């Protein structure tokens, strides 16, 4: 696999605010890459650097083998972008906006355009000012999916979509991947990321704190254990959030200590045992919440 997006040590400051603080991001060709982070962590700033709208202060960024600032125009022929908050021209109809946005990068497939309008249930004759937030989002999505592009950059693209349309969106991303398109998907909707993404990068305060496949990330974190034993449970000091209620034990354990815990539990005698890998939510919350230990410890674990 070759690399579609390669960013390293990216720094961008706005006045005294350090929006990007040495961010790294690698997206391989043909993958759907989830780009996660709390509000204000620098996701949109990264994307705007990749689109050549902002100029980075330092660090390197390569997009489809080119420089996103210098080669913006030829690169943009090969990519489509959906912002999280689409604003349309008040006096252009949705259909006109779709065609215009498509033509600005070299044209749309008319058959696919028609099919997408149908699937997203979008009326293209309304004027820009008459669309709701979700429908404005659909205009940009149809324009993006109806073209043949090497790369889709989607910045929280489903904000405002209802669950049915969210489903259509997932199908469209899957179809794009099947055509060989690389997708960078910035999102807050974890089920969406879980369903679509091959790999994810989690950023915080302008820095990448985790990157890898979902399995990798799960492996790096703690498993929840809920066991009912035949006797009084042990109280090992390497587990976290331990609660003991009679013969019942609940705790979280780092993956490398899971074997040791199971050995201790079987030594007492197990009546029932449930262990659950961490959900993406838990993974997330850990990174979003722990301000102090996030960048350093996450990298070590």
């Amino acid at each position: 696999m070759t690399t579609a997006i390669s960013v390293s040590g990216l720094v961008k400051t706005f006045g005294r605010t350090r929006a990007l603080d040495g961010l790294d991001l690698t997206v391989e060709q043909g993958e759907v890459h989830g780009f996660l982070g709390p509000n204000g962590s620098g996701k949109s700033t990264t994307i705007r650097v990749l689109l050549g709208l902002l100029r980075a202060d330092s660090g390197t960024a390569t997009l489809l083998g080119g420089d996103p600032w210098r080669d913006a125009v030829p690169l943009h022929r090969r990519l489509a972008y959906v912002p999280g908050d689409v604003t349309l021209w008040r006096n252009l109809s949705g259909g006109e906006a779709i065609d215009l946005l498509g033509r600005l990068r070299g044209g749309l497939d008319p058959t696919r355009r028609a099919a997408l309008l149908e699937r997203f249930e979008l009326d293209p004759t309304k004027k820009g000012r008459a669309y709701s937030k979700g429908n404005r989002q659909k205009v940009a999505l149809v324009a993006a999916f109806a073209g043949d592009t090497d790369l889709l950059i989607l910045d929280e693209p489903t904000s405002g979509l209802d669950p049915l349309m969210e489903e259509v969106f997932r199908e469209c991303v899957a179809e794009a991947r099947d055509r060989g398109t690389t997708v960078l998907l910035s999102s807050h909707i974890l089920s969406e990321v879980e369903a679509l993404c091959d790999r994810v990068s989690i950023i915080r305060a302008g820095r990448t704190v985790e990157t890898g496949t979902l399995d990798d990330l799960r492996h790096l974190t703690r498993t929840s254990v809920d066991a009912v034993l035949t006797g009084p449970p042990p109280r090992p000091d390497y587990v976290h959030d331990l609660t003991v209620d009679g013969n019942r034990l609940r705790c979280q354990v780092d993956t490398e200590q899971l074997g040791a815990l199971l050995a201790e539990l079987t030594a007492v005698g197990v009546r029932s045992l449930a262990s659950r890998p961490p959900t993406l939510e838990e993974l997330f919350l850990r990174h979003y919440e722990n301000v102090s230990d996030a960048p350093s410890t996450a990298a070590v674990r």
Partner: protein
Amino acid sequence: MSGYALTGTGALYRLALRRDRIALPVWVYVGTGMIASTAFSFRKLYGDEASRRTFAAGIDGNGSLRALYGPIFDGSTIGGLTAWRMGVFGAVLAALMSTLLVVRHTRAEEEDGRFELIGAGAVGRRAPLTAALATALTANAALAALVTVVLLAAGQALAGALAFGLALGATGVFFAALAAVTAQVAETGRAANGLAGAAIGLAFVLRAVGDSGSGAGWASWLSPIGWSEQVRPFAGDRWWVLALPLGGAALLTALARALVEHRDLGAGMLPQRPGPAAAAPGLADAAALARRLQRGALLGWALAFAAGGAVFGSVAKGVVDLVGDNRQMADLMARLGGQQGVLNAYLSTIAGVFGMIAAVYAVQSVLRLRAEESSGRAEPVLAGAVSRLRWAGGHLLFPLLGTAVLLAVAGATAGLAQGAALGGGTGDAVGRMLGGTLVQLPAVWLTAAVALAVYGLLPRWTAAGWAGYGMFVLVAWLGPILQLPQWVLDLSPFTHLPHLPGGAFTAAPLLWTTALAALAALAGLAGLRRRDLG
């Protein structure tokens, strides 16, 4: 709902004052400052009554000056001269300030979706409109008070000073109420400002026709700006005339309130039509998009320029007749080059006014770039295979060529109307008038290029593009009457243009003004290429 319709007005009023804490004082201080400096320079230049009377008689016999500034009702006092010289200007300034203010706090807020947040609070349906009008009332009251104070400080009578201040303030209040209505009718802030701006233009033209001495004096009474002149400060102080703008404002406010009750949030009064399901083949690049976005405004401006040219062209007959009737005046004017000279002086002044107004359009169409950028609409365009220069270039064709269209239209209609009114060669009149208006282009371009340079290099200070315009126009417009030193006058490109028709044509100032414009534009584009967008 009626019991709660005004809930929250006080909070919104304070919010409006807080948001406008810089803009409103600037408007009021600039207006007052210019009136003060006019009064003080008249005091210096025409210290005794005899010199004032001579000056006033010379002015009042000149139809073109009367069309621009209005008649002098009593030129024996400094106050009377100041009220004449700054009356129309002050009334237009108050009208613009009030219009922009009311639209900014009503329709523009609604368009941006901020009203939704406010409307969901404990805020009555009419509260935003009422708060905006209260803010406008405050600003105009401050203007009236300050104008009164500075004229008192210049040693003028209290009654006249107060009458002048109130005449300006009442005009502002009238146009605030008018803007409250256009903000209900139009769906965008831009359109609401456009409608109200057209009304201001119409009011100016009506009183210009009435004041020019062409026998249509009644036309001044159709114009709110004419009413403010007819208060006649320092020349009888006709207080009852103030009832016209204030009564009109009350009626318009009632209308706006009724309209608020009968429409949905975000909607206008005009129905929406569906658009095409697919784009025409021509809508294929950034330049085509720019044409689509800007053509409506250009059409509106072109219609206004055509109408303005026709009106000022047809008034030319009155200018000539007026001089013909008055032996003494004719002697004076003979020194200016006889009847033809008077006519040329009038026509070249009118051409200059069209140039300065075309510069408003030029700056406005340059700043469309900023509106596209800050609204986020430029982003998906530039995420396409579109370079920044190409994107900007599409829009910049309008300040470059649209201004030529406007000036040509005004020159053509002015020439036609003048030819029809005076008889003689219409084609000749059109050609001479076209020369007069088109010669304004370099100065118009330079004004636009300054705005572009500010936008490209200092995007956060884009509004300062208007400051450049304001300086150019104020210097050229008021500098000569204030007898400012030549180097100050030279700061405005409009000072350097040949006075056509009639004056000598010299290409040099046109060439170097155009060259300066090109330099400023290139600096702006270079800045735009290098900086962050959004």
